[in-house]
Structure formats: structure tokens, C-alpha cells
């Protein structure tokens, strides 16, 4: 009797295991790993949803030998339209032999059209659907988003991967989570790196992807593109300063190429009576990388001169960013948050409701200290003899 009971319990245990397991099993062979997606808005108001899927069969399985890019594309791009993004995705699935798997998407590309119309709607599916990752980068395309997927960069197999690497290294990397965070602040506007396809000028033509600047948003709508100089200015306000290069024109003497190594910006709002102004304090360390002039940096006064020019340069850069923001009444660097933190009462009374309209009347004072910490291995061009002999 007891043995039968034990047998029964064991049997039901096995049944329980076998029947309840495996329901969400998904072999790798049956998945289509989505590397990048692009979301566009069609003229008729429908969403166009495009995916980039690697064709793993052409990656070269056992026996070695990479697929290479010899004519055969090792990825597949397809798109479909729908009233919602999910609908488009489901429609796309109908002609896919493998299940689309979104957990590995590296970038989400937003078409310019959609960006100008407002990006808030797409954040629902990005957050609701568990496979989507909030750590994926978001990029705004110049023109149609799908075109970025179609590009074939030489260094990476997939344009999605290339875009991720470029954004990560050479732009302020801004992922979906951070954009969503900026959007939840009613008086802060996001910036998103903007990319476009360029054709290279080499003998073998290829379509590469390139960062062109930052899309300027007011609330969730794109209003303009930061010009190159203003884009550099955004860099100064970021907590993650990305080292960048600039050329200083020293007039008749020639040009000097400078790299900014570190940049540290402190913004302090000052409320005097009715007038609000910001004091912007910048500390930066730079190094001299190329010198086409005959200036000798052995002499301290020459270095001081460069530093003075650098201060001017930084001031111009920052000013152009601020002017761009003033022009379109956007606050992309969180000035409002500063006011709120320093003067919470006045913020609530006066600025909270229409902060963006106040931007135009705000003044800025600058306190900039650039320091040349490294002049390189030589003082002057080595082919020039010593001056005093």
C-alpha cells in the first residue's frame, strides 16, 4: 500500500515536471535576433517598423571562414506598416520563419518625421514589452530611419552595431532610459544624437553612418538640429565630457591644434531682485597636438596666450549652444532644475509654469579657466633651429 502511494507521488511529480516545463522554450535556431530597429511615420499616419536581422547561417559556422562582405549581405532588413508599432511587428512576423527576438537590439532609430511629430508614443512599447531593453541607445535619423539600417559600414557587419559603437565612443551616449527620464521632467528637453548616411570618397564606394550633431527637442518634439559648434557646447554641459579637438587660429603666426582632455562646468543661478542670471564656471585641461606656427611653447607667455585664446573659444562655443536654446526656447541642459534647487520658492511662484518663455531674458556670466597641461614632446617644430643661436 505504502509503496503504491510512493509510486503515485513520484509519478505525479514527473507528470508535473514534464507538463509544466518547456512552455517558453525557444531554441536559438528558431529565433531571429534583431540587432536594430527603425521607427518611421508614414504620410498616412501609420507607423513603419523596420528591423535588421543578421543571417546567422552566412556568418560561417563550423569549419571557420568568416562570411565576409563579398557581395552577399549577411543581414536582412524588412519593414511593415501598422496603426501601432506592435501591429507592424506582428505583421512582419507573419512572413518570418523565425521568431523575432528583440532583447539584443543595440539601437532604436527614430525617423526625422516621427521625431518632429513627437516621440512619446513609442516609449510605451519600448518600456512595456519586456524584451526591449531600456539600455539600448536611441538615435534620430536625418530623413528616413530605414535608410540608416540599409547602410553598409565597412568596419562592422551590421549598421546597427556600427551606430552603437559610434554613439558610444564619439557622441554623448544617451540611452532610452535617460531620454525617458529627461522627458518626465516637464521643464527639461532631451537631446538625441542624430545620424545620417554618407557615401565615402574612396575608390570602393561604401555607405557609412555618421553622427551629424544633436537633435534639439522641445518636450517630445524635435524642433531643430544643433549646429556643429553648438553641439560641441552641449558636450561642455554634459557630466560625461568627451575629449574633442579644435583648431585655434593665432592670426599671422599660424594655427595650433588643441585637444580638450577634461572639462568641468559649474552652473550657478543668481537671482538679483527680478533678474535671473547664471554664472557658468568652466575648468578645462587641454593639450597641444599640432603646431603649424613657429611659436615656441618653451616660453610661458606663449602658453598663456594660447590659454587666453582657449578661454575665448570655450566661451564662444558655450554661447552658441545657449543662443541655439534661446532661439527655440528649449532647455536641453537642465537650467530649470538648477533654479529649482537654488530658489525653490521663486521657482514655484514665478518660473515653473512657463519656464521656456523666460529663457530669452536670462543673462549669463562666464568664468573660464583653460589650462594647457601638455605641450607634447617638442617645443617647436624640430626642423627649426634654435632661435638664439
Amino acid at each position, binding site marked *: 500500500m505504502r509503496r503504491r502511494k510512493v509510486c503515485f507521488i513520484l509519478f505525479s511529480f514527473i507528470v508535473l*515536471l*514534464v507538463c*509544466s*516545463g*518547456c512552455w*517558453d*522554450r*525557444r*531554441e*536559438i*535556431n528558431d*529565433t531571429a*535576433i534583431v*540587432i536594430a530597429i527603425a521607427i518611421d511615420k508614414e504620410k498616412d499616419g501609420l507607423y513603419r517598423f523596420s528591423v535588421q536581422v*543578421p543571417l*546567422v*547561417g552566412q*556568418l*560561417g*559556422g*563550423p*569549419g571557420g571562414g568568416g562570411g565576409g562582405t563579398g557581395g552577399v549581405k549577411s543581414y536582412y532588413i524588412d519593414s511593415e506598416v501598422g496603426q501601432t508599432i506592435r501591429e507592424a511587428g506582428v505583421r512582419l512576423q507573419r512572413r518570418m520563419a523565425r521568431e523575432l*527576438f528583440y*532583447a*539584443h537590439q*543595440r539601437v532604436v532609430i527614430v525617423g526625422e518625421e516621427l521625431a518632429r511629430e513627437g516621440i512619446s508614443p513609442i516609449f510605451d512599447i519600448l518600456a512595456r514589452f519586456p*524584451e526591449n531593453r531600456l539600455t539600448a541607445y536611441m538615435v534620430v535619423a536625418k530623413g528616413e530611419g530605414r535608410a540608416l539600417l540599409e547602410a553598409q559600414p565597412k568596419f562592422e557587419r551590421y549598421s546597427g*552595431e556600427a551606430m552603437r559603437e559610434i554613439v558610444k565612443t564619439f557622441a554623448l551616449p544617451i540611452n532610452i532610459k535617460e531620454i525617458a527620464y529627461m522627458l518626465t521632467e516637464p521643464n527639461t528637453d532631451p537631446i538625441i544624437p542624430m545620424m545620417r548616411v554618407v557615401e565615402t570618397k574612396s575608390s570602393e564606394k561604401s555607405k557609412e553612418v555618421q553622427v551629424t550633431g544633436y537633435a534639439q527637442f522641445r518636450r517630445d518634439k524635435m524642433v531643430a538640429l544643433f549646429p556643429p559648434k553648438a553641439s560641441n557646447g552641449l558636450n561642455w554641459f554634459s557630466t560625461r565630457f568627451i575629449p574633442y579637438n579644435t583648431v585655434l587660429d593665432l592670426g599671422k603666426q599660424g594655427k595650433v591644434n588643441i585637444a580638450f582632455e577634461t572639462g568641468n562646468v559649474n552652473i550657478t543661478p543668481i537671482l538679483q531682485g527680478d533678474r535671473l542670471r547664471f554664472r557658468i564656471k568652466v575648468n578645462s585641461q587641454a593639450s597641444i597636438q599640432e603646431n603649424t606656427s613657429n611659436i615656441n611653447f618653451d616660453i610661458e607667455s606663449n602658453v598663456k596666450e594660447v590659454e587666453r585664446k582657449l578661454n575665448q573659444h570655450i566661451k564662444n562655443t558655450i554661447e552658441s549652444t545657449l543662443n541655439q536654446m534661446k532661439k527655440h526656447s528649449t532647455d536641453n541642459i537642465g537650467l530649470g532644475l538648477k533654479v529649482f534647487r537654488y530658489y525653490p520658492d521663486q521657482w514655484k511662484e514665478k518660473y515653473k509654469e512657463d519656464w521656456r518663455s523666460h529663457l530669452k531674458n536670462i543673462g549669463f556670466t562666464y568664468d573660464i579657466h583653460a589650462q594647457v597641461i601638455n605641450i607634447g614632446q617638442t617645443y617647436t617644430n624640430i626642423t627649426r633651429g634654435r632661435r638664439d643661436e
Partner: protein
Amino acid sequence: MKRTRKQKREVEEQVQQLNDKDIYELTSLPISSSLEENKKILDQLFKDSSDIVIREFTFHDGKPAIAIFVDGLIHTQGINDVLKSIMVFKGEGTNIEVLKRAVIPSAQIAHVDNYADFLQPVLSGDTGIFIEGVGSALLLGIRGPQLRSVGEPESESVIRGPREGFIESLRTNTALIRRRLKTPRLKIKPLMLGKESNTNIALAYIEGIVDPETLKEVQQRLQKIEIDAILETGYIEELIEDSTFSPFPQVQYSERPDTVAAALLEGRIAIMVDGTPIVLIVPTTFWTMMQANEDYYERFQIATLIRWLRYFSLALSLLTPAMYVAVTTYHQAMLPTTLLLSVAAARETIPFPAVVETLIMEVSFEALREAGVRLPKTVGQAVSILGALVVGQAAVQAGIVSAPMVIVVSITGIASFTIPRYNSAITFRMLRFPLIIAASLFGIYGIMLGIILILGHMANLRSFGVPYLSPISPFSTKDIKDVAFRMPWPLMIKRPSFFSIGDEDRMGRELQRAVLEEGGQTGKYIEHDTNQREKDNE
């Protein structure tokens, strides 16, 4: 007269039934003073036994006597010497004390008066001597040469450490331990088990360090064994361990006298069995299975690092195949994208699901290993070549298994070889199969359930009263020194507290204090400057 005849008949009946009886039942059969009667009994006992030699001889005065021994177990030259000295002895042969003291040149000599006590030593290699008119038999311990010489143990080789290993002779083995622990506190208690095998067993421990309760428990369990034969320590292990059905070994074994001696010094008990070079050590814990003797001979830093490597590879050997199955069938999101793509590319042409692929590879790997162990060494090489070709290359090129799978199997194999105790490695080899099944059903959730079950079981196990996971669970801070690390010897002052209760201190503290205070320069400082030295001398 009547009574004696009746007695005679009884004896004859007894003689007829002798072969139906176990040796210990013969305690009731006394050794007769009549040589004729003894001979009859011996003839009956050893009929059809060609290896028993019964040598008849007479004393100088014509008194008959017989010597009986097992051919091959005795030392022939020694017996010749003894017989010679008896034959030339000119005194009276019936005085057994005189014979023992003054005549027979044998180091080990005893006399017994019943057949049970007589047969056991004789069958173990002693020589028995019956003399007409003496109601007891002499036993001469003149045993034959060793079966094989003491060599390096193959299953536990070391780079630094003694090259001696146990052999099949119990006496040699006890001698090897005694040579390391020259103290009267080392006790080696004899025991005999097995109705037919009458195997000699020795229980070794150090009095004052061992826990008397544990000792009593071990003795009681051993004495309760009733089995026909003990041919290897494995018989005893499974008979006396706490949970027979657990996959985890609760008894440690070793082939090395230094390992056993170290265990005895930790207050543990060694069970030595005649006829096998393996010595059992009880009680034991899971962590001792992760320790090799060389850990204590090499520098402590590398010993500590290697211990951690072992713990890590233990986890690898248990979890790698299961994780592969779980990740490739449920949690593809966990892998880095590029890795996922290369795994996907490798798996593209594979016809089987990941579980089936894993099981095929793991089973064929186990088969290869088993074939390699059992086969003679010359054939074993062919097996490894076949294995490398078929499993490693051909299967991948044919597209039956993927290359990552081969890597997973190799990692698992290598990891399981780093566990120093074979029986413990086997456990994890077995347990990984249920985990693979669990992973294929529920993914990582299934693996977690499996790990919880295994850990729960381990926490529940005891080896002779010692919790299997001690000193980690129950936690004991001072004993961590020999589990999470291998502390340098000066800091390992106390013996592990979960084993011993007697003498807790392993060493004094004077040296450590001196080193601490004088920076290692205790009393001797050599001046390198010779001028200075001369000046000091003046």
C-alpha cells in the same frame, strides 16, 4: 571409561560437522591433548585444501608433533630455522613454557587452547605447532614476504611530499602510520570482520585527540557488520555511513600514510582493511573532500588560490552544461550580443535541440572516460585518439554537435578533474545530469531549484554526527582558516573544533610571538660589513 567413550563419540560427531560451522563457533572446540585427535580434526577441516601443509616431526626424545601452515603465506627459511631448533632440543617437549622461552627462535609466539583462536591466525599466515600430550597449540608469527613493495600511490600523486603509499598488507600499512606518529597515544585496535573472509581490520586513532563518543559510535557500527566477506573498504563504507542513499560520500579514503596521519591528528579515525591499499577516514566533511595533502606542503598563498580554483571548478563541473542548455533555450537575452551571434552561427546546422545535443556529448564523454579507465593502458591510448577525433572534430564538422558544445564538455571535464578526491568528483559528475534535465524544463529557474535541493540535502547530511558542511554550516569563525583559506602554519594553532574535543592545541605560541617581536631575527644577526664585525669583536 563410559563417559570418555561418550565424549569421544561427541567429538567425532562434531568433527563430521566441522565444515558447516563458522570459525567463531569453533571456540567451543578445545584443542585436545591427543595428537591423534587433533590430526583427525585438522584433516577434516582442511580436506581438499591443497595449500595447507601438515608437517609431522618428532622431538629428540621421540615425542611426535606436527606443524601446520598455509603454503605461500609463511616465510619458509624462518620455519626451517624453528623446526631445526626444536628437533635438536634435548629437553622435555611437553613443557610449553620452556619451548616458548628457551627453544623457539621466533619473535612472535603465542599459545591457544581452542580451534577458533587457532585457525584465524594460521589462515592469516601463522604457523601452528601441536605436540603430543599438550592441550594447546603454539602459534609462530613467521609470515611471508610482502606482496608488493611500498610504492608511490597512483591515485594521489604529489610534487612535494612523501612518495610512499599503502599496500595490500595491513601490517605494512600500520607500520607506515606508526613510522609517522611515534607516540604511544596512537592506538591501532584490531577487529575481524566477514564470516568467510575473516578480514583483519585495524582502527587507528590518537587517544586524547579523538572524540571518545565518535570512537564508540564507529566501533559499534563496525561490530554490527555481519557479512560474508570484506574484499574492499567500499563494503564497509556503505555499511556504516549515515545516509546510504545519498550521492555524497560521507567517508573519506586515502592511499597516503601522510594524509591519514594528518587526519588522525585532527581527531579523526582511520579504518584500515587487510588486502587493500585504501584506508577509510571518518568522520569527514564536504570541505575535506576539496583539500589535497599538498595544500599543506606548498606555500600557503598558492594553496589558498588553488582551493578557490577548486571551488570555482566544482561549480563549473556541476553547472556548465546545465547553464548552456538554460541560456540557449530560455535566456538568450543574457548573452552578450556578439557571443549570441557566434553561438547562433555555430548552432545553425545542428539538427537537435540544445538538451539532446548536450546529453549526447556528456554521455559520450562519460563513456570515453570509463573506457579509458577500464581498458589496459596500451588500448587506452587508442580510446583517447578515437575520442579526440570523433567527439572533438568529426562530430563538429559533420554538423551533429556545435563547437561551443565541445567547449562546454571540455570545460566540464577539466573542471571535474581538478577535484582532488575521486569519489567527490563522481558525485558532481552524476548530479549534473539531473540539472541538465531541470534546465531543459525550466531554464535557470530549474537550475536554481536543483541547487536548492542539493544544498538542502548537503546541509542535512551528517558523517558520524559531524554536519557535512561544517564549518560553513553551522558556521564557525575560527575553523574558516582551513576552508576558505589555507592559513600559514604559524596561525593554525588550534585543531578543527568540529572534529576533536580532546587536545585542542596543535602547537605552541612562543615562536610566533618571537617572530612578531623581533621581526624573525631571533638572536642572530649577521653583520655584512666585515670591518664593523671586526670592530665589534674588539
